[in-house]
């Protein structure tokens, strides 16, 4: 494989950080710019360029582009973020309490009690992760 082809393949892989719709619309164009910016003989993307692509791609996923004029839509997006923040906090709380019960679990087991709590927390974590995955 030539240097250029190998570089292009690596850039293409980095573009996967962008949302699919954006990639379909702008992927080839960004790739053309990336290749134009790369000096002859470069085989792999630089660290800074890679970080920039990942950061931009994630930013685009997290920040749906809504024009400033569409206030209602922007408000809806903000609400969605608030919801996501609550879910994330929930998730963190669940993980912490799971870790705590895990530690004290041995003592509880010795006492011969049933533990439906960790199961509920696990379900909560899986549910939370699924929600985040769906939302992304």
């Amino acid at each position, binding site marked *: 494989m030539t240097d250029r082809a190998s570089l292009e393949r690596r850039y293409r892989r980095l573009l996967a950080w962008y949302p699919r719709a954006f990639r379909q619309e702008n992927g080839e164009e960004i*790739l053309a*710019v990336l290749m134009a*910016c790369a000096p002859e003989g470069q085989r792999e993307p630089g660290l800074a*360029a890679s970080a*920039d692509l990942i950061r*931009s791609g994630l930013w685009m996923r997290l920040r749906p*582009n*809504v024009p400033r*004029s569409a206030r209602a839509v922007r408000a809806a997006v903000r609400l969605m973020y608030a919801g996501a923040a609550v879910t994330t906090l929930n998730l963190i709380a669940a993980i912490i309490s799971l870790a705590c019960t895990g530690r004290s679990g041995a003592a509880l087991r010795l006492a011969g009690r049933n533990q439906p709590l960790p199961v509920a927390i696990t379900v909560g974590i899986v549910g939370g992760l699924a929600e985040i995955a769906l939302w992304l």
Partner: protein
Amino acid sequence: MGIRAMQEATFMILTALANGSQHGYGIITDVQEISNGQVRLRPGTLYTALDRLCADELIAVDREEIVDGRLRRYYRLTPTGTKRLSAEAARLQAHVTAALTRLNLSGGMAT
């Protein structure tokens, strides 16, 4: 609500488009030239900005060309973009003038 200051990258992109449409790579090299090599836009940053500027209708796609089998999309300023850029340029100029005036004044007093 006050006017929000424009990010430097945005300002430079709009400036690059002020005297005609350009494609992505053209904007990067032009911005580098305008800023004496100080502002180097990375492709990721550039396209995040272009996407937002298109959504805000400050720029628009002018035309598309295929060069060496690769897509080249040219962007141009919209009338709103022109207005926004000139407002921002005037705002910055006022700040620069104020800074230079005060520096000259204090410089005069110090000597």
